[in-house]
């Protein structure tokens, strides 16, 4: 059975998001006082409309995509260590995107299409491998393999790149960032993220049934083929479009469902909406933080998330090891 995800958690997250959005519009290298917000024509107004609004919208959309994808992948694999980064979905997406940089296909739609295709191939490989037998171990190992393959592909593109400009662009892009994004990026990514998110929100009940394992879920009338198709399409679209715009930003999908599980319980369907909202909040908060750190050049968002997420991942691994010891 699915009941509405605990509404007070959702409400709290919405309030948090509203506050973060306001901060995101005024905070940065240039602080814009609140009373200037309603003064079009001011040069500071341009900073808000041209830079900060798209950046905020992208952080929200990408954070939500990553948080939701993480919650769905964890529910499907029944493994709290699954997420688009760990399972290689993001790096397959980045391989797709790097190929467009390598071949100098610069239209924003092309990068998105290649990144989505790469991510979708990644999810399909994962689901194909676990469809028959598999289990969590196969899934995670497949993720390791996908990561290795994608990284090798990216390195090859870097080494073989005839154009040093393209190479340096690839490197910068790989680090993951939301700075200097425009409304074009918003319009490129958001429709895919929304479509993918909608597909992912449809699998809640199937994920609940998977609490009983694959046989259990089938005995409850769940068609796992449909579940897999929705997940492949949903994660492929949402993560692929995210990667296309921001580069690889890891750990959001790993941390967020874990935190939400503490608040709303383990039932996979109740985790979906809170994970999307909390993912948006986490990424937006991290992006604000990155803007405020005084440094010669801005610290990359992907790097910042890795600095936060790496130790968290380690701590989870140790906790799980203890439980089995």
């Amino acid at each position: 059975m699915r009941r509405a995800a605990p509404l007070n958690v959702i409400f709290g997250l919405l309030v948090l998001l509203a506050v973060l959005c306001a901060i995101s519009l005024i905070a940065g290298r240039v602080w814009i006082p609140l009373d200037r917000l309603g003064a079009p024509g001011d040069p500071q107004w341009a900073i808000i409309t041209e830079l900060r609004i798209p950046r905020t919208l992208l952080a929200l959309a990408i954070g939500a995509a990553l948080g939701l994808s993480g919650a769905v992948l964890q529910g499907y694999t029944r493994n709290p260590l699954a997420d688009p980064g760990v399972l290689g979905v993001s790096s397959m997406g980045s391989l797709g995107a790097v190929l467009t940089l390598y071949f100098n296909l610069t239209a924003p739609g092309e990068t998105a299409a290649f990144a989505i295709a790469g991510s979708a191939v990644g999810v399909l490989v994962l689901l194909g491998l676990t469809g028959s037998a598999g289990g969590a171990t196969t899934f995670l190992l497949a993720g390791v393999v996908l990561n290795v393959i994608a990284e090798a592909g990216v390195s090859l593109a870097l080494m073989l790149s005839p154009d040093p400009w393209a190479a340096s662009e690839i490197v910068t892009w790989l680090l993951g960032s939301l700075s200097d994004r425009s409304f074009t990026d918003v319009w490129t990514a958001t429709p895919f993220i929304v479509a993918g998110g909608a597909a992912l929100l449809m699998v809640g009940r199937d994920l609940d049934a998977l609490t009983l394992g694959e046989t259990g879920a089938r005995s409850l009338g769940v068609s796992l083929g449909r579940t897999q198709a929705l997940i492949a399409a949903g994660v492929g679209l949402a993560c692929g479009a995210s990667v296309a715009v921001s580069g690889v930003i890891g750990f959001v999908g790993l941390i967020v469902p874990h935190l939400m599980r503490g608040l709303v319980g383990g039932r996979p369907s109740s985790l979906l909406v809170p994970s999307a909202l909390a993912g948006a909040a986490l990424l937006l908060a991290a992006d604000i933080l990155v803007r405020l750190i005084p440094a010669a050049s801005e610290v990359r968002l992907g790097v910042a998330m890795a600095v936060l997420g790496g130790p968290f991942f380690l701590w989870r691994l140790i906790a799980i090891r203890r439980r089995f010891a």
Partner: protein
Amino acid sequence: MRTEGALGLEAHGLTVRLGGRAVVDRVDLAFAPGAVTAVLGPNGAGKSTLLSCLAGLRRPQAGEARLGGRSLAVVPGKERAHLLGYLPQSPEIAWSVDVRTFAGLGRTVRVGAFGPSDVDRAAVARALAVTQLTDLADRDVTTLSGGERARAHIARVLAGEPRWMIADEPLTGLDPSHQLDAADLMRGFAQAGGGVVVTLHDLAFAARFADRVVVLAEGRVLADGTPAEALAPDILARAYAIDARWTSGAAGPLLEVVARR
């Protein structure tokens, strides 16, 4: 529900080959609702394999399982889930959810798009009450004891209000009193018109509570009949290689295992 009235469950020449060997070998059986059938047999006899075919969860290599005269291969998953409740031998529970939510999973195909209705909640509450889990309804199901968890699985199947209950060793881990309770539940389910196919290893217990006993050995049906017929000493000798005799006890027949052959 599309099919009303008597809804028989049948195996026709059912054959499952695993690892190059027929684990279930040309099994013909017909089960009618209103009775409890115990499927017995030594470890590895093919009981679980047979039950998963009857539950429509495994495709046999030859023959078929039929529900209401239709091959289970063509019954859509949702309809099958309405009619058949299945309890696997070693069920998995992946996430910590409360017992009430867990039992509610049994109603996955019944719950409407907008979440559980009062009817759904009432069915879950009834299932928890008859399995004596009402007091534990808010506990995390993964923290239950083995026997409590076994009851939670029974509650999950009952909450789905199926027409058939296909239960693979549901009594394992239950204390004697809860074994009797679970047996009463299955008898009550059958008396209310449902069908029960259940495996267990306690021969004397099976003799007391089943209407019919099927003995399986090496994938073949060795005996099929009333408990007295199907558990006769010569059959036990062939199935389990034991010398055993039945004596009458105060509450029913008792099985005395005399020796290993």
